């Protein structure tokens, strides 16, 4: 495991909101290093004549008609939420956001 493997693991953990102890970071760093190494090998292959693929199937152009179906009842949707008030999901206060 190199220092950069460890840095990548720590950064990825941060982005994924995962808390890693030093021992865990080292363990995953090791595994990460091996995975990245495998991809480096793949990257060396000459694929100039291979059509790029974005999925594991040969399917394309799967669409549906713009016709609505009933949505789920709210009680059912909210049933498994850790906290809800009958109308909304209640989550810890988070201000800021994204778009």
């Amino acid at each position, binding site marked *: 495991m190199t220092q950069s493997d460890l840095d990548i693991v720590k950064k990825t953990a941060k982005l994924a909101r995962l808390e890693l102890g030093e021992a865990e970071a080292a363990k995953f760093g090791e595994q990460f290093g091996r995975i990245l190494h495998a991809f480096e090998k793949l990257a060396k292959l000459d694929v100039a004549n291979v059509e790029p693929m974005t999925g*594991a199937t040969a399917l394309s152009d799967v669409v549906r008609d713009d016709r609505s179906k009933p949505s789920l009842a*709210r009680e059912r949707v909210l049933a498994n939420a850790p906290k809800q008030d009958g109308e909304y999901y209640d989550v810890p206060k988070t201000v800021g*956001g994204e778009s």
Partner: protein
Amino acid sequence: MSPTTSAPAIGVVSKKTGVRWIPVIGLEVHCQLKTETKLFCSCRYEFGASPNTLTCPVCTAQPGALPVLNREALALAVRVAGALGADVAARTKFDRKNYFYCDLPKGYQISQYDQPFCTGGGVTLASGKRVRLVRIHLEEDAGKAIHDRGDMTLVDLNRAGVPLIESVTHADMQTSDEAYEYLTALKEILQYVGASDCDMEKGSLRCDVNVSVHPEGEGWRTKVELKNLNSFKNVKDAIEHEIERQIEAYESGDKSKFPVQETRLYDATTQTTRTMRSKEDAHDYRYFPEPDLVPFHLDPAFVEKQRSMLPELPAARRARYQSQFGLSAYDAGVLTSSRALADFFETTVKLSGNPKESANWIANGVLANLSDPAITAKSVDELPFRAHDLAELIELVANQTIHNNVGRTVLRGMFESGKSPRQIVKEQGLEQVSDEGQLESWCREALVGKDKVIADVKAGKTKAVAALMGPVMKASKGSANPQKVQEILLRIIQTEL
């Protein structure tokens, strides 16, 4: 409001230093597409619906649920590309944009990264300047988080999964007015195409702005992103404020105060911006191809079909109204401001055969009534009468059944009661009176005690008779034929008094 003044040439000249600063402005606009269902599931969406009543396993990200693309969303998006003169890709795919936020149930947004469905295109401003688009892509909207009710954040996922098109311009604009004009034009086009309501109040159009400034002749400097812009006016004000803020920061000479690459939130109450996040916290979205969706081919026949469904766009209509109907550029602009209004105008023209009067009655009469708080109808879609009725009113004025001013009263009556012009004229006895006997008796009444006027007219000042017109029109409730009244008044004074 600023230490700077606008100059006729581009840019802003600082009063403090005399330096000409050139602003560089680009816009990112998100618009909700007007489909029946969401982008990847069959839930409906409706603004203002009861929270969490329009969701399903797909848009709430239940394990194992799979997205399927809405054909109509793709069709509308391609139609928009056609309207904006953009190039539609032969092949397009979706990617995952990864970030965590409570309004995003999957932990990623399905968006398009390196193969958007279209690139290029743009919007031409009135000055002839072209604002170029970099690209337009399709993506799903997030849900809504409410922070100001109690000590928890409340999440409503109704909006999660609603189709959006995000259009990104090149940094081609240099003034807040250009940005405002671009937005207005883009909104008009999307509404004409029927792709989006573009209603900022309902969040169906949202705009982020990138702004930087640099001294004339120098290279571009650090850009700042502005968010939380809830109206076109906010966009304009925020840009003006930000240009001013950046110039002041550079001119302070204090490098620690120089603009940094960051996202700032606009506060409409104080008309200022504040830091939301700096570059260090900038997200690493780790885009990768969405494995749950297949690639899509936009074959030329499909693209051509969408293009053939485009209506005549606002700029083309404006030009035609000027050349075909001889309208002023201003009137043509007013009448094409929405497709519904333009369609109403054209139907009125067809039925009345009178383009100029149709333009006058709509641009002045109809629109003035629509903006009157006392009138229920707020837009041309809500009019309580049809183009057929307005054409009838135009005809009644043109053939002198009623006087022009009475026409205004009749139009008001149409707004209030929805009755036809003929019916209103009949019920209120507004028909122009040309009957000599009736007119003469009103004239004689008006002449009583007006010795000064009579003397003036007799002395050759025939214009003095104008002072008697008011009383006659009043006595006749506006129905007297003014030309005849004048003739009769002069005749009586000159031959009988």
